[in-house]
């Protein structure tokens, strides 16, 4: 369905990563934003506060990040595509209701512009320390989708994609950006609305009396009705049966939790997004994400010009972990580098699926500075 949101169709714009996220959200049909001020994500709130009233959407600044997350879930249940944005400390507060969105299968998008941590950490410096929190931050087994941005332009694309996946699979989708991407300003050309695929949740078509709100179907994603549209149903954070009512019956609990995971497994091919660069004949490879992937691309070119057959696997989706493509790279290459602005988080996932004699090397930087192409190139020289 083409979006009706005002769009800077095909225009060249000077944007920062945070602004591109807002543009992407509006094109995707986002009509509700709730947030709480935090560096380095505040520009997302600021731009929404100006844009939402123009299109008749809602911007609200809540009292904290817990409230922001609650509000976007309520908004989504009332039929609006909704979003919030924060950084590490706020992301910690959101975990409670991210779990709620997961169990109540409420589509929503949460942006975490990562900064150095733990705790208040390094508010104005980039980091990638929240990778595992994005996957496992809320309690209990839960499905979730985690995407990353690496440039201003892809901040736009990934945000559209995040909304599409949230709507299609009825899950919260986390976008991990970082201070580097968020505050980089560059000239980008945004695509025209008509060239952008926008996905909306499937709403029930049957009469209300036939509607079973959490009924399993082939996709494992039940139709989602909107509050006020005549399909009165119960939404709860308790484990529930197909009618939405709390249950402790082991068979119903088991079916429910397994369906939550199955819908992601079934949709894996759609969710898994990676970008490969010169991996066809690569003997050494970099596996990277976020702003590090951008540096790695340059490092690969530098390495190639010095006779090293290097390649890059850029992970756009971090979770569900794009295992099959990672395995292909591990199988083909003798040496793989995983540079990250943390003490080594995705490298653990890469090592976990490495069934080959391939050497997996980590490279960490946690001093609040981005990883440069030279640093990666220097590491590749060791291969």
């Amino acid at each position, binding site marked *: 369905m083409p979006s009706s949101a005002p769009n800077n169709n095909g225009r060249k714009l000077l944007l920062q990563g945070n602004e591109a996220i807002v543009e992407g959200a509006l094109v995707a049909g986002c009509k509700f934003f709730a947030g709480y001020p935090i560096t380095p994500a505040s520009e997302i709130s600021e731009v929404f506060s*100006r844009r939402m009233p123009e299109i008749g959407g809602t911007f609200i600044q809540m009292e904290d990040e817990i409230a922001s997350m*609650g509000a976007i879930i309520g908004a989504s249940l009332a039929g609006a595509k909704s979003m919030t944005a924060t950084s590490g400390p706020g992301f910690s507060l959101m975990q409670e209701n991210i779990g709620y969105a997961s169990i109540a299968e409420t589509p929503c998008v949460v942006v975490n512009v990562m900064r150095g941590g733990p705790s208040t950490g390094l508010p104005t410096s980039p980091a990638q320390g929240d990778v595992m929190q994005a996957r496992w931050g809320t309690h209990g087994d839960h499905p979730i989708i985690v995407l990353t941005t690496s440039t201003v332009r892809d901040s736009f694309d990934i945000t559209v994609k995040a909304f599409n996946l949230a709507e299609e699979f009825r899950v919260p989708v986390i976008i991990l950006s970082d201070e580097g991407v968020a505050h980089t300003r560059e000239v980008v050309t945004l695509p025209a609305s008509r060239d952008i695929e926008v996905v909306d949740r499937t709403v029930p078509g049957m009469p209300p009396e036939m509607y079973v709100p959490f009924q399993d179907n082939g996709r494992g994603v039940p139709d989602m009705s909107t509050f006020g549209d005549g399909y009165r149903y*119960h939404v709860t954070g308790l484990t529930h049966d197909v009618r939405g009512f709390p249950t402790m019956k082991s068979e119903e609990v088991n079916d429910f939790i397994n369906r939550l995971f199955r819908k992601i497994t079934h949709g894996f091919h759609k969710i898994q997004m990676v970008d490969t660069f010169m991996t066809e004949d690569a003997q050494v490879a970099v596996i990277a994400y976020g702003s590090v992937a951008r540096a790695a691309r340059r490092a690969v070119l530098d390495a190639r010009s010095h006779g090293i057959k290097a390649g890059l696997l850029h992970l756009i989706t971090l979770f569900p972990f794009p295992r099959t493509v990672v395995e292909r790279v591990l199988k083909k290459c003798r040496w793989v580098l995983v540079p990250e602005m943390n003490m080594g988080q995705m490298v653990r996932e890469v090592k976990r699926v490495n069934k080959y004699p391939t050497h997996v090397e980590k490279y960490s930087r946690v001093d609040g500075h981005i990883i440069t192409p030279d640093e990666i190139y220097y590491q590749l020289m060791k291969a």
Partner: protein
Amino acid sequence: MSQEVTRLVHKYLRHDKKFPHVWCPGCGNGIILGALIRAVDRLGFTKDEVVLVSGIGCSGRMPVYADFNTLHTTHGRALTFATGVKLVKPDLKVIVIMGDGDATAIGGNHFIHTARRNIDLTSIIINNYIYGMTGGQFSPTTPYGSMASTSPYGHIEPTFSIAQLAETAGASFLARGTVYHARLLDKLIESAILNCGFSVVEVISNCHVHFGRRNETSNPVTMIKSMKENAVTVEKAKKMTPESLKDKIVVGVLNDIQKPAYINEYQKICEKAKN
């Protein structure tokens, strides 16, 4: 009368929900659900127009039994979810049920700020002076000196006045009732729903199982009768001294003022942004 009850039960309770409910025999929650249903019925709203939101605790279980759009959220966060629903669909009547701990301890920040914004929501706070579902721990409204499972030597903290808190924070309609005064409660909830802005109805209820048993009585009838004996109407209270009002429950409409509701203000900035 009984025909009327039957009609309301059939119309508003969920027949496909497996009753009986989770509440203990003698619990006041059923009286409050009854009052809420009677108020909605008298106002003539359709079931599709009503959203019933709750947090966590015994009160949190109320929505599951009622055939509205129902939303059982996380502990203390009901008002935040309700805010999202209301702002997207302002035509829906959003009613939020909370307990004393739910609304004023873990949800205290949300309560203050939802009241300050004067968002058009109706909140019903069931105050039974205790955390019932978890086994009787003290809450912000547990009276000084009372026994609770986490105050075995007597409670040492001062209490919150829910009404004063709500008024100071900015709620535009404020009322208090009890589960004894069921008919009054119908009317208070009705007025709260009609108010354009943030409304609070505090309902004094009995948790004889966890509060009463550790304190004066485990008999629900005795507890509810004491509400009758200690209740003073707003009008009568005006003529009484603060000393004579000590330990009394002032019932009725405590505050009702007209002030701009958030949604109306937001619509104004939408117009400004479009021009």
